[in-house]
């Protein structure tokens, strides 16, 4: 009787799993997600190691709130300021979403710096993770460019003059600076095209670059694993085992070739 009940419950589990099995057989996605979620990390990692995920969460908040704001915002010099006032004062919960986007932008940048400080102080940028540090620096620069282009969009006095100053700082770069500034303005002077240009960069081009860089960043995090804390025996700088399956990646000294 007992065995029969067991087989019955097993069958039920199989039926419940059928859609997942179907998906797995055709895409391997289930295994991939399981690999991502249940991959091994060093035993003694702590809250410091959550700063990267926190930054990613801040970015996702920016994506979602930004998409919603775009539904009400007008990138046009004659109506941009009014549309922001409309979002803040009239649209239901508009003040909240705009506030999340406006303050979340600072949270995103601040968390990037905290994450960067953690990686630096823990020595987690060292071999074989140098490339991920470089991608992280690109993410920081791209993220700040995203902040710069977003700052013009409220189209108030602060936005306008801060962008004038920002563009002109770019313009003082040697040799190509004047051309860079003119490209950013979309002309010799700030005009109707400038705000639309900044909007397009802010909405489409830079987020695309950010998402691509974040994908690369995460790929390398998963591929290389989380570095152990520097104070542990397996800490940064210690002799390390070869990266599984990639013996060619180990340093000569780790293989005992040079001493």
């Amino acid at each position: 009787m007992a065995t029969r009940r067991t087989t019955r419950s097993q069958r039920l589990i199989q039926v419940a799993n059928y859609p997942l099995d179907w998906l797995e057989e055709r895409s391997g996605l289930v295994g991939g997600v399981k690999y991502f979620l249940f991959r091994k990390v060093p035993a003694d990692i702590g809250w410091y190691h959550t700063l990267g995920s926190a930054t990613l969460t801040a970015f996702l908040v920016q994506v979602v709130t930004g998409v919603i704001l775009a539904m009400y915002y007008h990138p046009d010099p004659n109506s941009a300021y009014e549309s922001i006032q409309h979002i803040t004062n009239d649209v239901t919960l508009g003040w909240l979403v705009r506030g999340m986007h406006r303050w979340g932008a600072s949270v995103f940048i601040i968390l990037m710096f905290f994450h960067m400080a953690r990686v630096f102080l823990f020595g987690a940028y060292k071999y074989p993770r140098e490339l991920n540090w470089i991608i992280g620096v690109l993410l920081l620069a791209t993220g700040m460019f995203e902040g710069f282009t977003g700052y013009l969009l409220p189209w108030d006095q602060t936005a306008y003059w801060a962008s004038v100053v920002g563009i002109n700082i770019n313009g003082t770069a040697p040799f190509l600076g004047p051309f860079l500034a003119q490209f950013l303005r979309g002309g010799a002077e700030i005009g109707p095209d400038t705000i639309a240009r900044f909007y397009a960069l802010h909405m489409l081009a830079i987020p695309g670059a950010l998402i691509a860089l974040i994908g690369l960043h995460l790929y390398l995090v998963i591929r290389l694993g989380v570095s152990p804390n520097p104070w542990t025996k397996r800490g940064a700088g210690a002799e390390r085992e070869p990266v599984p399956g990639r013996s060619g990646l180990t340093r000569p000294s780790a293989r005992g070739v040079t001493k």
Partner: protein
Amino acid sequence: MEPSHDQPHVPGPSLWPIGFALGIACVLVGLIVSWPAAAVGAVIAVACAYFWIRDAARGYRTPVVHEPESRAVAAGAAPPASAGEPALPVMEDEEIERFPRNVFLEGATLGLGGLIGGLVTVPAVGFMVAPAFVRQHAKSVDVGPLTDFPEGQYVIATFLRDPSQGEVSRRTAYVRNNGVVTGRPSFTIISNRCAHLGCPVQPNGPVFDAKKNVVQTTQGEQVTIIPMQPAGFGCPCHGGQYDTEGNRIAGPPVRSLDRYDYEIKNGHLVLLGTYSVAHVDGTGSGAKIRRYGLAGPGEHITGPEAWFYPLQPPH
């Protein structure tokens, strides 16, 4: 059942989906026509769905038996690969194709792909970049009759630099009538764009807003003229200070304030393009202006630092 790639398991054949579809159709028609018909359709759909799922899940109730693939070994078994003749004829070096077909196809695919990509990308990138650099000539602006500019006094003139662009092109100039010199009126017209990073410089001194004068110009645009008495100009952003000729006297600016070219047309003052100024010696009509082509704010136009800006975009 473990999913595997070499043994795809597909639900067995079943006719019940047809009954299920009929039931759903009956429900939809019934929703419009009559409730009982919808109920009948629902019963049909649920029943057929039950039998369909039973059919589809048969593989889980009775394990599928896979017959092992078997092959009778021939009497004269083939020798192992290492022992027998080579399967393919041995080729001499000259016989091996120097430029095989797959290399050609690979190159053709990459080349054509790159060509098509370039044909699409180049105009698109040009569309993004080029408009910022072509047709950037400043338009001339009529700022009203000469009588609105009293001799020896500075006024603030605000005007639309390009009326087709609207309010975003509003600019401010500080205009002083220097009187008539050798039969021609002389003006000092200073741009309010700070030579540090482009903030609007302000007059250091009283501004007589009560004497504001709004002029309708020949171009149909409104120009605002406000008298003032500056002891110099100062920038609110980073503290750059200039004298009444626009020479830098303190703070971060790298040169003097830019100036407007002008002409007199039908008794009206007409502003033309702007130019940059390294330094102004003397004042008013007797001033010696060391003028240069227009440069962006913060760009040196004299001294070794000017070597960093050998080229200027058209503006």
